[in-house]
């Protein structure tokens, strides 16, 4: 009976926010390396979206961003003394229900160095989680949200690579 209660609660209110490691792209390599550290500052995140779906907290997205950017080779390490990246999670658009769940995510990025803005861009990403990825709807929605965040970071790495920092 307790299993049914927790499952019902999970389906109705979601199963927690996205995990940083699931938001990191598996293999994206930057062709240009800045050789400097990167420090991310994230705003607009929350554990749950306004509609009650799984959200992305500022701290989780910061971790995923910094780790992914360093792993890609774009930046040397995570920390102060180099570039500052401001990420504003403007929207996470989730379905209320469905078999294949499509999540859209809008993030505005501002890259600074020494206080001056050197690059700005809003990136919209999409990810569709099919039923094969997870049977439970709440889990599938979280996977779709993590996928949208992952795609957003991939697009960011590619866009920054084009800037040849």
């Amino acid at each position, binding site marked *: *009976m307790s299993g*049914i*209660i927790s499952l*019902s*609660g999970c389906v*109705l*209110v979601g199963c927690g926010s996205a995990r940083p490691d699931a938001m990191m792209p598996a293999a994206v390599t930057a062709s240009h390396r800045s050789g400097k550290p990167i420090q991310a*500052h994230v*705003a*607009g995140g929350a554990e749950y979206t*306004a*509609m*009650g779906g799984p959200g992305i907290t500022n701290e989780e997205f910061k971790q995923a961003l910094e780790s992914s950017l360093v792993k890609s080779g774009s930046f040397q390490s995570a920390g102060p003394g180099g570039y500052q990246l*401001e990420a*504003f999670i*403007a*929207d996470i*658009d989730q379905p*209320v229900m469905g078999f294949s769940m499509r999540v859209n995510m*809008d993030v*505005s990025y*501002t890259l600074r160095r020494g206080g001056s*803005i050197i690059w*700005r*861009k*809003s990136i919209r990403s999409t990810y569709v989680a099919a039923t094969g990825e997870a049977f439970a709807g709440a889990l599938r929605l979280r996977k779709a949200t993590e996928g949208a965040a992952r795609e957003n970071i991939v697009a960011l790495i590619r866009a920054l690579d084009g800037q040849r920092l």
Partner: protein
Amino acid sequence: MILEKTGNPGSPCMPFHLMKTTSNKRHWMSRILKTGAVVALVSALSSCSVHENTRQISPSFSETGVTKLRSFHVRKHADDDYNLAEDIAAELQRMGYRATSGTAQSPPGRVDAVLSYKDRWVWDMTMYMISLDVQLREPGSDVILATAKTVRSSLIRKSQQEMVRETLTKLLKNQ
């Protein structure tokens, strides 16, 4: 046979195989009823009225920056069946701003900011707007500077115009 079907399962006149089947049916009925009761309880507890009216400002922008904006272009999206873009522009004008609306990606003239929006509608006796999300964008770069969102569930639903007013007030007025 009729006596067996309507008889008391526990009575000694009922054959053993029928007693077992009836017992299984009772067991499953009981489980289904219990599960239904739990789901109904959780649903009842979770379906309370939801009202959210929030604003988020990008770290690269500021509240002062928002209050300095005087002119807007509302970018109408392709699925706007309710003339929401026109209502947003009209409400902005009522609030004392200059505002235009249209489907073009870029504003027709120089404006301080572009507004895009996302509306979500659901059915509960009638169609109603459950959420309105307005995004304030920098003209040219299209970077999102701030967002405001209003969510109202069925019991506390408001008209389209009132949803627009509530969201724009949250977005543009000093908090």
